[in-house]
């Protein structure tokens, strides 16, 4: 399996001699200073955006949604019927999640989410997408060879399990509701949320089993 990361950024390997800043750092800094000087952007807004998406929004949000659905059948039903409203019940929503759809894994069918055309991803529940999700290898193969993609992530499904791929070609954003792992009956909602990985909610992974998680 390929765990190393190849080409997320060609630029920061290409530093100028005698400078800590890469050519991209310099170009980006130049544009930012122009935009600020001309009054199009408020530096405080840039800082607030980075703060929000770097420290406040991430896959722990989605994990809470999944855990709630695992313990509360009425919530699960609402989530599958109107995901945007059900997710909002837990306080999550907004940019990149205005129109949510949650798709449920079953023993018969496994769901996998991709955006072949760009990088559409459910920000309020998963945060910003990982580099691989936005890169050509995943975007090209997810729709034609999803079992091969899953194998690369270490996931092998029974041959009898159908695969359903959701290509996010409009403003609907998808999240997978994975199956509750075996042996998790004794866990409470918070402990269940610890089993839910980002990849399990994209469909490229499965939830952890309880013996893979040590509660602190």
């Amino acid at each position, binding site marked *: 399996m*390929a765990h*190393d*990361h*190849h*080409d*997320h*950024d*060609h*630029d920061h390997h290409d530093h100028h001699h005698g400078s800590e800043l890469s050519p*991209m*750092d*310099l*170009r*980006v*800094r*130049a*544009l930012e*200073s*122009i*935009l600020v000087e*001309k009054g*199009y*952007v*408020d530096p405080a*807004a*840039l800082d*607030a*955006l*980075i703060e929000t*998406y770097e420290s406040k929004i991430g896959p722990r949000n989605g994990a809470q949604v999944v855990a709630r659905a695992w313990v509360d059948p009425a919530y699960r039903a609402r989530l599958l019927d109107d995901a945007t409203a059900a997710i909002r019940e837990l306080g999550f929503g*907004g*940019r*990149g999640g*205005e*129109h949510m759809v949650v798709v449920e894994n079953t023993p018969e069918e496994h769901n996998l989410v991709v955006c*072949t*055309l760009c990088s559409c991803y459910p920000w309020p529940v998963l945060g910003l997408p*990982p*580099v691989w999700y*936005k*890169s*050509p*290898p*995943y*975007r*090209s*193969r997810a*729709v*034609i060879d999803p*079992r091969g993609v899953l194998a*690369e992530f270490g996931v092998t499904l029974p041959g009898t399990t*159908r*695969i*359903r*791929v*959701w290509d*996010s*070609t409009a*403003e*609907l954003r998808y999240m997978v509701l994975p199956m509750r792992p075996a042996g998790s009956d004794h866990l409470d909602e918070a402990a269940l949320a610890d089993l839910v990985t980002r990849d399990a909610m994209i469909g490229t992974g499965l939830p952890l089993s309880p013996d893979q998680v040590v509660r602190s």
Partner: protein
Amino acid sequence: MNGGQDLGGMQGFGPIGFEADEPWFHAPWERRVFAMVMAMGLTGTWNLDASRAARESLPPGEYLTSSYYRIWFRALEKQVVQHGLVTEGELAAGAALTPPAPVARVLKGEEVAPLFARGFPSDRPGPDRPRFAAGDEVTAKTINPPGHTRLPRYVRGRTGVVERVHGRFVFPDSNAHFAGEAPQWLYTVRFAGVELWGEDADPGLAVSVNAFESYLEPARGRAA
């Protein structure tokens, strides 16, 4: 357009290469690009569809070999020049040399949390009725528009089944070119893997896209 962005079904890109404990950003400039793209998007000068159109109009060779934040940055540079907010000379000089052009709004720091928590819905309810219903067999039209579209090549000419009718949404093909939101009904259409990829495809595979009404016509071939 049939640009570098339309990747579904392409082969030869190699392993996915995921990264354990991946950081949100991989270089300081990526943070700034992310924030600038968000903030400039709220000036009212362009819309999200136009930004996607700008990104996918990068030459395919450049698109396919650039990191995603680099794609965002190159498109942003293009957009600020096209819309007269920044000149080429200013980009080259790295400094403002001309007076600012008016913009509809400037996002303030304190507005970020409430605006982004509310989001920017793109559904546009209206009185007209959808042409198709769940269960209808439909064929994705063969179209190759030179401008923006959200109908990927791999479903064009293929027949599938309408699974869900979602409501009326902003039509990107129009909005991206500032020709109006022109809302259309949006559907989930499910295609069998063998319909998309041929008889050697995984028989247990189905792929769905979200398709606008004008992308679809009543089924003319084999159903999924």
